[in-house]
């Protein structure tokens, strides 16, 4: 079955073309650089909306492109999008678009290189979401991870060299395990192909031993799980988020961490569904720690970005928690949470970035009453916070509701413990509002100005997305339903 290049290739090629144009653009044309990268992001945004509309809700891999690439290894250039990846493609293009908008004024030196790395990174992310071949999947995965190192050490703040190296080493360490797992599957299936679909067929025809499934699945799970900040491998994530520049944090927390969860579903669960069944309890236990511990630590942070960093750890725990429930509600909630958290956390980081650019500090206790000076930024942050603590009307509510519904069906006791995490979320979000935004105005901040029109556009897009999907969740669920059910039925078989 051979299909030529199509729209999915354009998803990852468009940012690459942007990179090429930028390389040859003299770096003194800063506005030109920003416009080119914004244009590339806009094109991917349009394409991903088109994909979203055109996607057939009956599920399965669509828009496929399938060509033989390296005969000798059996590598195929195989791309396809299913109900799981289409929303994430949309998420990625929204976040990169808003990310470029919100770093419009923030990045002042080496503008060209910054945008080159951003586009490179996002190209890798798109590639991961659409790859159906293990080698391409892995290549894109690394392309998505590595530019972050340079983004952090060059444009970052707060212990940037330490954090950048830590983040990179953690993620690459994880990918070693992913690679071992993939090689094991490749060898088990006779070294004929690296196509994930064919892997699946070959694994079905020649089922691996229980031992194989039980050792390889956790390797892949933990390998990807490191990127999704699974406890106890989460410590890179708050450090990295804090150190990264605004747009990079947005991409990183908003999209890159989802790569981990997506990898678990697309590779580990898809290839070895029995593994998930066997290890589900373990996953529930680890993610419970994520939820509770992340929230507790977030409560005690004094740096705004650390608060959000640990809240991400907690929220990604909810994704894993949903996967571990082994029922439709849990799966759907997890998939939805990936999307909802991506938008929400991008909004958070955009707001914090705007505050930091003006005030040059992120210490909560240093602020006070800045709501009067920056009503729009604080208002946007408020929206993100309310979405985070699960206010109905925002996408986050639907996602968390689904996850906990599934959790109460499967493990009522554990679910009631996990709900504590939500309460804590409310606590730390409100604490930030109270200490930093409201309260006694600190005269030191009288000179602060509110966000620019360009940044407001980014906030509007992000808040709008959260509201649309929160009010009309079927927009998401209809797309993802069929494929999630299929995946689930294989796990439960």
């Amino acid at each position, binding site marked *: 079955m051979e299909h030529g290049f199509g729209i999915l290739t354009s998803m990852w090629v468009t940012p690459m073309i942007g990179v090429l144009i930028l390389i040859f653009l003299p770096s003194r044309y800063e506005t030109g650089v920003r416009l080119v990268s914004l244009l590339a992001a806009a094109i991917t945004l349009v394409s991903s909306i088109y994909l979203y509309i055109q996607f057939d809700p009956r599920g399965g891999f669509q828009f496929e492109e399938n060509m033989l*690439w*390296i*005969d*000798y*290894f059996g*590598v195929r250039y195989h791309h396809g999008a299913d109900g799981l990846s289409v929303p994430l493609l949309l998420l990625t293009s929204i976040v990169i678009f808003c990310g470029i908008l919100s770093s419009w004024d923030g990045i002042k030196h080496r503008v060209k290189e910054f945008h080159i790395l951003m586009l490179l990174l996002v190209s890798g992310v798109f590639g991961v979401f659409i790859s159906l071949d293990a*080698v391409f999947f*892995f*290549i894109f995965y*690394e*392309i998505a991870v*590595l530019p972050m*190192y*340079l983004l952090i*050490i*060059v444009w970052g703040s707060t212990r940037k*060299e330490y954090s950048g*190296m830590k983040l*990179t*080493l953690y993620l*690459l*360490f994880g990918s*070693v395990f992913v*690679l*071992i797992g993939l*090689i*094991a599957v*490749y*060898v088990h299936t006779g*070294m004929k192909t690296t196509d994930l679909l064919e892997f699946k067929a070959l694994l079905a025809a020649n089922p691996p031993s229980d031992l194989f499934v039980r050792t390889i699945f956790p390797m892949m799970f933990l390998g990807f799980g490191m990127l999704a900040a699974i406890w106890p491998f989460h410590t890179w994530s708050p450090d990295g988020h804090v150190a990264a520049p605004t747009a990079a944090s947005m991409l990183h927390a908003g999209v890159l961490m989802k790569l981990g969860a997506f990898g678990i579903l697309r590779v580990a669960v898809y290839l070895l569904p029995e593994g998930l069944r066997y290890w589900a309890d373990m996953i529930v236990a680890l993610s419970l720690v994520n939820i509770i511990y992340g929230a507790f630590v977030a409560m005690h942070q004094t740096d705004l970005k650390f608060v959000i960093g640990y809240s991400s750890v907690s929220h990604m725990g909810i994704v894993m928690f949903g996967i571990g429930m082994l029922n439709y509600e849990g799966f759907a909630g997890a998939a939805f949470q990936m999307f909802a958290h991506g938008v929400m956390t991008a909004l958070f980081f955009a707001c914090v970035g705007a505050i930091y650019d003006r005030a040059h500090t992120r210490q909560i206790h240093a602020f006070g009453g800045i709501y009067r000076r920056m009503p729009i930024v604080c208002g946007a942050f408020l929206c993100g916070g309310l979405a985070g603590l699960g206010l109905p009307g925002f996408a986050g509510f639907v996602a968390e509701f689904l996850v906990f519904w599934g959790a109460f069906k499967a493990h009522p006791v554990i679910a009631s413990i996990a709900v504590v995490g939500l309460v804590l979320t409310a606590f730390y979000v409100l604490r930030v509002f109270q200490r930093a935004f409201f309260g006694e105005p600190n005269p030191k901040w009288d000179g602060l100005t509110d966000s620019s029109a360009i940044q407001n556009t980014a906030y509007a897009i992000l808040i709008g997305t959260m509201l649309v999907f929160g009010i009309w969740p079927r927009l998401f669920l209809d797309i993802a339903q069929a494929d999630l059910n299929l995946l689930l039925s294989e796990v439960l078989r």
Partner: protein
Amino acid sequence: MIDVAPEAYVLGLAVFWLIVSVVRPGRDCTWLAIVLGLVGIWITWESSFRFGVMSPQIRFYQAYRVDLFSQGFKLLLMIGYVLILNLHKSDRSLVKRSQAEYQFLLAAALFGMMMLTSVYDLLVLYLAMETTSYSLYVLCVLRRRVTESTEAGLKYVLIGAVSSAVMLFGISYLYGLTGTTSIPGVMSRSADLVNTPGFVLGMFLLFSGLFFKLAAFPFHFWAPDVYEGTSNQVAAYLGTVSKVAATAFILRVVSMMPKAAEVMNVALYVVAIASMTYGNFVAIRQTDMKRMLAYSGIGHIGYLMVGVLAAINMGESGYTATIYYTGMYMIMNFAAFMVVHACVDESGRALIRNFNDLYRRSPLLCATLVVSMFTLGGIPPMAGFFGKLYLFMTAFKGGFVWLVVVGLLNSFVSLYYYLRVCKAAFMDPPAAPMPEIRLEPRRAALCIILIAYMVLFGFFSNAVDNYAALARSLLGPIGV
């Protein structure tokens, strides 16, 4: 006799430079050398792949074998030689008077290495090794008025001499047991003798000599000191071309063994793991770029030994993976050395500090450095990733699961020090303002070619496909 044309040409080249060194010492002849080297590539290509041997030829009284395998490696060596010539900075690096001598020794060493790929007799092996080694000994001390250079050369001579003696001792054992010095003769007896202590000892000593040339783990002591002390282009020569030749010989010996002894497997297993682990972990602590590359080289030899093990146990695919990786290693390591050579003044040390802010001083060199570090680290989609992937997949299939796990963990460790170099180049401010580096068009073009090779070779993987197929076809005529 067209099949030995490459060796004849290189020998002629060496003689030519010897004469020049007497008649016109001190004349800068880089351009002439490059042109003559390119002619050499052409001759090797034409004689081997156009008119040349498609079936193996045994020459010189059963002592020398010319086949596709050896010719492919000769081409690779020739290319490496021309790359090294491109590094030559005539004015600063060497004692002025020894320009032509440098060319002579380079060509003489190349001649020895070419012989090494075709060796079919243990005595010829010894001759080839010594021809190479003696030239390299002298090359090491040609650096201008640096004490480390002398020290490095002395160290290299002493350890080299000991290892040659050890190898001869091993050869004497093999001769004593089998009554012949012909390698296929020895190997054909190995099925009976494989478990006798004498034979095992002989093989072990023989391989020790080769491991010395490769700087594999227990025989690596010389490498960091010699790299550090000698001039950059000679270090590059040692780090790239000479390893290709030694790998070629190891593959040839291995291909003639009917069946590997268990003890041989174990020994290679230990050497592979020890080399990888030791090299990569010690490289972390280095502050000198050339020392770091030396240790990273020790690590890479560990990966190559994984390939040799796979070749012994898995046959064809193991050879292909090893050949592929060898070729790749030569190019990527060369790229790293080229940046070292361009950035660092020959009279000083190549500290990683000296690469600070390379990003501003020369974006092209910085790009070359970053790409070569990523390739050495095996990060996709660089060419090195495919090499490593192939190596490890083959080993995994051969049942060396733990070897693969250790290998992958090691390549993860190696990323730390490779990334640190990238960080220095991008981020760290220089201690004192350093001037911009102006590259001549020749070397700028070389940079671009190398970057394109390292990035695209993996990505446009039909090239990988063809390369692997070529490597496989080179293997065809090997064996007894």
